[in-house]
């Protein structure tokens, strides 16, 4: 319990620091919100009145505190551009991105774990080298580059198996969504493949070398039982941690991927609100991405602690 509380507290402190840095960054140089909203022609008195009404003339710490007070209750303010609440667009965009991210993980996890375990069992052989080098290369190529190459091969230009543009997909059926999102999800999945496969390989190899595996072998257990009960159960624990931290990484790639495929998720929204300097929306996007990462890593850590008593007990000392 103390471990859980400690993890949550540390995470919240990080989020708070993040919100401060982000708020400061967004406030340093955006100029004059009243001027942005009311336009070049507005009289200075109207601009001053607008800024006063929305509290832009108050000192930075006060504004930050007010903003944070609203933000923790889920109110991220209103767009500079049209005055609508930021959450109106933020929530559907986040849902779309989470759907895409989930799809990418579903595509990625089984294949990468399988590949990692195969590589570990064939250590040093050509299969291991092929999996390792492929994973290493895919992991470092930007997602949008993989997306562009995938579209060239599988998209309308050549084989024409999947569409190259996703669009909003409003009212689309589940299968249409999967079809339209297959290429963006695959691009994200390929990038993650390397990391997850590498962790699965390392974990499995460590478990294979462990004493408990030798004991189980010498006890005369069948190879398959040793693998399932002893090696994989221990070897795949670190992989769970990596998968959860990769969520943050995935959401970085989602920005470029959503732009490439024209899919209006939170990455796309981050970009468009940055382009028109809609700072309330931009702030909300960055913070929500931070929260997604926080929840994902926390879940991963807690899952590991639940599965592995050694972690749970070690941290309590």
């Amino acid at each position: 319990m103390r471990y859980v509380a400690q993890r949550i507290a540390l995470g919240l402190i990080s989020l708070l620091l993040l919100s401060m840095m982000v708020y400061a960054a967004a406030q340093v140089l955006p100029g004059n919100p009243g001027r942005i909203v009311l336009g070049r022609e507005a009289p200075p008195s109207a601009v001053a009145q607008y800024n006063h009404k929305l509290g832009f003339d108050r000192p930075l710490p006060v504004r930050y505190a007010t903003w944070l007070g609203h933000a923790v209750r889920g109110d991220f303010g209103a767009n500079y551009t049209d005055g609508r609440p930021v959450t109106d667009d933020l929530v559907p965009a986040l849902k779309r991105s989470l759907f895409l991210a989930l799809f990418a993980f579903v595509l990625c996890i089984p294949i990468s774990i399988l590949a990692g375990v195969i590589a570990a069992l064939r250590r040093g052989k050509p299969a291991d080298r092929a999996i390792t080098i492929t994973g290493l290369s895919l992991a470092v190529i930007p997602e949008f580059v993989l997306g562009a190459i995938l579209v060239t091969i599988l998209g309308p230009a050549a084989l024409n198996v999947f569409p190259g543009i996703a669009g909003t997909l409003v009212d689309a059926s589940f299968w249409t969504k999967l079809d339209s999102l297959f290429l963006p999800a695959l691009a994200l999945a390929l990038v993650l493949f390397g990391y997850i496969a590498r962790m699965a390989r390392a974990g499995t190899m460590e478990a294979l070398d462990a004493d408990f595996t030798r004991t189980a072998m010498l006890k005369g257990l069948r190879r398959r039982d040793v693998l399932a009960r002893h090696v994989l159960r221990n070897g795949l624990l670190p992989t769970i941690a990596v998968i959860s931290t990769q969520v943050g990484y995935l959401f970085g790639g989602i920005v470029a991927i959503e732009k490439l495929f024209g899919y209006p998720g939170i990455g796309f929204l981050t970009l468009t609100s940055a382009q028109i300097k809609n700072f309330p929306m931009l702030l909300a996007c960055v913070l929500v991405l931070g929260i997604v990462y926080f929840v994902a890593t926390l879940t991963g850590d807690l899952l590991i602690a639940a599965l592995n008593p050694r972690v749970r007990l070690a941290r309590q000392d």
Partner: protein
Amino acid sequence: MPQLPVVVEGAPPLSPALDSPHRIRRETLRQIVRSPTFIVGAIVTLFWIVCAVGGTHVAPYDPINGSFAPSYAHPAWAHPFGMDRVGRDVFSRVLVGSRSVLEVAPAATLLGVGLGSFIGLVMGFFGGWVDNVIGRIVDAVLAVPFIVLAILVLTALSAGAEGISVSSLKLILVIGIAFTPIVARTVRSAVLAERDLDYVQAARLRGEHAPYIMLAEILPNVMGPIIVEATVRLGYAVFAVATLAFVGYGPQPPSPDWGLQIADQYADVTLAWWAVVFPAIAIASLVVAINLIADTVQQVLDQ
């Protein structure tokens, strides 16, 4: 009863000639240079550096002002990568496009690794609250994808109400500073492992100042992790520059930047896949090549 130490750790061995620092360094370098992955990575990287330096001198056609004649010509002998929408030779544009990436990525890496190493040294050496505070900031920065933070900062830094033309210098600063905390964390853990070793204790007992111990005693011993970190960061920097250019934070048209080319030509990918896929392959080749180098360096230095 306390015993006098018979063997001092880190004392010079009997035959210093066999593993003098100079010899070890030469041996390490030889191992790196002879590795096939390093050779492949180095050749590809060198190729792009030559293109970046040579610029329009190595390109067969003008990369900016095309013929404006047959747009979207298929790849052919005269134009191996085809032509884009306005009749520019894609091959020439891909060659010259390496410049904008290689102008930013190495400088950003140097800045991030330099600053990060310094902060990491301070964190690891002093520990305590300095370490804690910086550690929390690192966690906060790492909680958001780098690209998103960069977009936020670059937006805040671009003064104009419309259009986001981002200069190379701004990109170098933002990427370099964003790398700093990550490098700092790596260097910190390397310093922690060194801090309590005998040679540091000896320097303390000699009455050396903290800056001297950090720079003259500890720094040379954590150069390995710093070099590894620098090569890995260089790969990330290319990744970041290309992605930022693709999402619009970088060179603007008609620049032949790779990421910009992909963003620019993607709408017509069904008509002319070659205008999209060749810049994409160029980015992929450079990033993979740098990571092959990084991987070799890491494997040799971690031995």
